[in-house]
């Protein structure tokens, strides 16, 4: 059997011995390593890499001389990364690599992660980084990609026993992944449903999933934290799903105001563009989540609910509810496929359940009224006299889902 290939990424001018050590371990385990040098300084070196930085720079439209004479480190990095992406994709097309493993500090991890982001979901990606736990960086390394981010704890400098231990574990993790069982992540397009959710609507999500799976619809869940729902939009655009149940589209408002669950400017648009049926509900839409260190005095005065030690939701203002409703309508009005909006009348999540501080169905109605005014006529809004987490609400969603998704399957 042909040996599976692993692409190793490192800046050989600073992490040469460490990368060669990983290369050796991968080789010893019966995999075929290809080591690519991401050094950006344009020095000529015999680094022991299989693909030298000259070749990477050339693929990125630059030359070693150009890199060496440039003081613009940002531009050099860009050339190397774009060259590395091109080469990685060529190797992937030629079926010569089956996993990618990078190591680096701050800059090296950023470069390596960019190459990983360009590779498809399901393709094994391991990044060993000494900067993995620095606030803000881990998020930038991972983004919406299915990376394994391995915190080295010690600096990746010098082959000490501690670092060897880390590099061996990382290399063997790749070995384990490539030797193990592999399901191709090609969701069954004729059937699979994407569903966004958050823990405050977990009960509803569970009930809907169970009911749909009983009818042989696989349901793929996405945590609507701003990252997971971006990933959902990207996978919808990739044609992976036949329908969407968007339980928690709060990322739309969070983007408008720049808060933590910000899901980017194109949230709530992919399904409409693809023309697949979508059911929209409202978990978390009536709350905001600014970073706690960024609370203004006005935020301090708002009604609030602590979900746990880390998470607090603040109640949205009436003005914001109106603004967000308009934005929802603008996006949903562009849809080429069928859309239904379903709104619970007794709180939109377990956070604003009756009795809790942020429960306010009167104010919730501001959103509904505005949405009804601005939404195109063929999009129905159904109101259910229950809380989001009540079984009645899940039942209403399921009933609608079966109508909409089954209806479509007849001409798919």
């Amino acid at each position, binding site marked *: 059997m042909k040996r599976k290939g692993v692409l190793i990424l490192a800046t050989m001018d600073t992490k040469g011995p460490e990368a060669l050590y990983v290369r050796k371990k991968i080789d010893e385990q019966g995999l075929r390593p290809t080591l690519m040098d991401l050094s950006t300084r344009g020095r000529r070196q015999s680094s022991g890499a299989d693909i030298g930085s000259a070749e990477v720079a050339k693929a990125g439209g630059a030359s070693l001389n150009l890199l060496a004479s440039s003081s613009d480190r940002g531009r050099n990095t860009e050339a190397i990364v774009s060259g590395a992406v091109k080469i990685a994709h060529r190797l992937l097309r030629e079926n010569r690599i089956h996993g990618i493993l990078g190591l680096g500090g701050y800059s090296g991890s950023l470069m390596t992660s960019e190459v990983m982001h360009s590779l498809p979901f399901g393709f*094994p990606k391991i990044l060993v980084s000494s900067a993995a736990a620095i606030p803000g960086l881990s998020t930038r390394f991972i983004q919406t990609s299915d990376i394994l981010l391995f915190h080295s704890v*010690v600096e990746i400098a010098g082959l000490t026993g*501690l670092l060897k231990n880390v590099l061996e*574990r990382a290399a063997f993790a790749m070995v384990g992944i490539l030797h193990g*069982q592999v*399901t*191709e992540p090609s969701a069954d397009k004729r059937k699979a449903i994407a569903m966004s959710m958050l823990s405050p609507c977990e009960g509803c999500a569970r009930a809907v999933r169970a009911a749909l799976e009983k009818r042989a619809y696989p349901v793929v869940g996405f945590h609507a*934290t701003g990252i997971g729902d971006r990933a959902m939009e990207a996978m919808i655009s990739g044609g992976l799903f036949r329908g969407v149940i968007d339980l928690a589209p709060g990322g739309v408002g969070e983007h408008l105001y720049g808060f933590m669950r910000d899901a980017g400017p194109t949230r709530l648009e992919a399904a409409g563009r693809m023309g697949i049926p979508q059911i929209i509900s409202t978990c978390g839409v009536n709350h905001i989540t600014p970073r706690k260190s960024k609370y203004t005095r006005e935020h301090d005065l708002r009604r609030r609910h602590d979900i746990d030690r880390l998470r607090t939701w603040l109640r949205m203002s009436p003005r914001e509810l109106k603004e967000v409703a308009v934005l929802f309508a603008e996006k949903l009005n562009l849809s080429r496929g069928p859309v239904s909006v379903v709104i619970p009348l007794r709180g939109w999540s377990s956070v604003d359940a009756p009795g809790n501080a942020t429960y306010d169905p009167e104010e919730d109605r501001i959103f509904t009224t505005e949405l009804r005014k601005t939404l195109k006529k063929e999009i129905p809004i159904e109101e259910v006299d229950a809380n989001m987490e009540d079984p009645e609400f899940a039942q209403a969603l399921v009933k609608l889902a079966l109508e909409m998704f089954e209806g479509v399957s007849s001409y798919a």
Partner: protein
Amino acid sequence: MPKHIVILSSLDTKGEEASYLKDLIESQGFKTILMDTSIGGEPALQPDISSEEVARLGGGNIRDIRASRNTGQVTPLMIKGASTKVQELLAKGLLDGIISFGGASNTTSATSVMKALPFGIPKLMVSSTASMPAYAAKYIGTKDITMMHSVVDISGLNDLTKAVLERAAGGICGMAAASGGPVKPASTSPLIAMTTFKFAEECGQHAMALLEKKGYTVIPFHAQGIGDSAMEELIEQGLFQGVLDLVPAGVIEELLGGNRAAGALRLESAGRAGIPQVYTPCGFDMLSCGPLSRREAGDPLWTSLRLADRKIFIPDEFRVQARTRGDEVCKVAEVVSRKLNASKGPVRFFIPTQGWSSLSSKGADLYEPVTDALFAPVLKKSLRRDIEVAELPMELNSTEFAEALVTALDSMVKTTT
């Protein structure tokens, strides 16, 4: 003997997924120990360690925990119980790797449990919230945890969730196959822990080369708050024979609220372990206060400490360093003394009087010898008599200074062992 992988899972809702993961791991020749950490209800799958036991070990009772609506109160009990249990399994040789999967709540609890395990034990957290701003770094903290971003929620078994769980199983099995348990100190070459950062780079490199020539292995830690806290924990794990704490900056950053703050316990573990320690004041000459946008935003750190009125070094928008004041270096001298006075082993402090870092040597942006001069008298007054303070008329980033540090540490290690 087969190796054991512990699976932490909320079996009240994730039975099917946990069962799939368990089978995958067992098919690679490992034994599994399934621990139920759920607080919701009865498990859908029979665990090896029940949630009743976990709750009891945490000092609680599963029936009360299930009845409680206050997850913020009961979760810590389950974390405590699970942490106790995994340490017990490790001690019995029944834990060669640990894996868990889930969303925000599970990730917070499971990574807390993983933090109870030493460096070198494979720890894999499969999480749909791995990439979330504000949490991601907290999940990892100072530990060698691997975060795998699942992208999709691990709820139900479909082609996407299966693909994720298969890679996770492969990853933890591979890591556990490679691992020989917690990392132990190598007997051949004594290990020295050293803190360093950009503004002490030359000194760090000299010292490292000199120590290696003397037969030591040096493990450098980046003194940016996380790296140096991680060093403290590895010192507790008994890995090192000595510490060259070139950059104790985390103490003053903690005191003033800077970006490199390293927690309240920095500078304490080496003293408790009784191993030789050598210090410099590098980093007490600056405060990390970026990004620069905080200045315009009227950030509390900037306004309360009046940073805009000080000397400031701005290499780029993010890494902004402000000069520290006389009262602040005196205060840190007292705090450092209090910590070092508790040491059980030998300690020496070296002050380079011509600049504590590349930023405060002559001609550099934060050069302020008058302020620096206030530090030594306070330090000498507050330190225990037997802790020697040497003032050397040189720059920190000079070969001579590095030599002085290494000579001292070498003789201290040789007399201690």
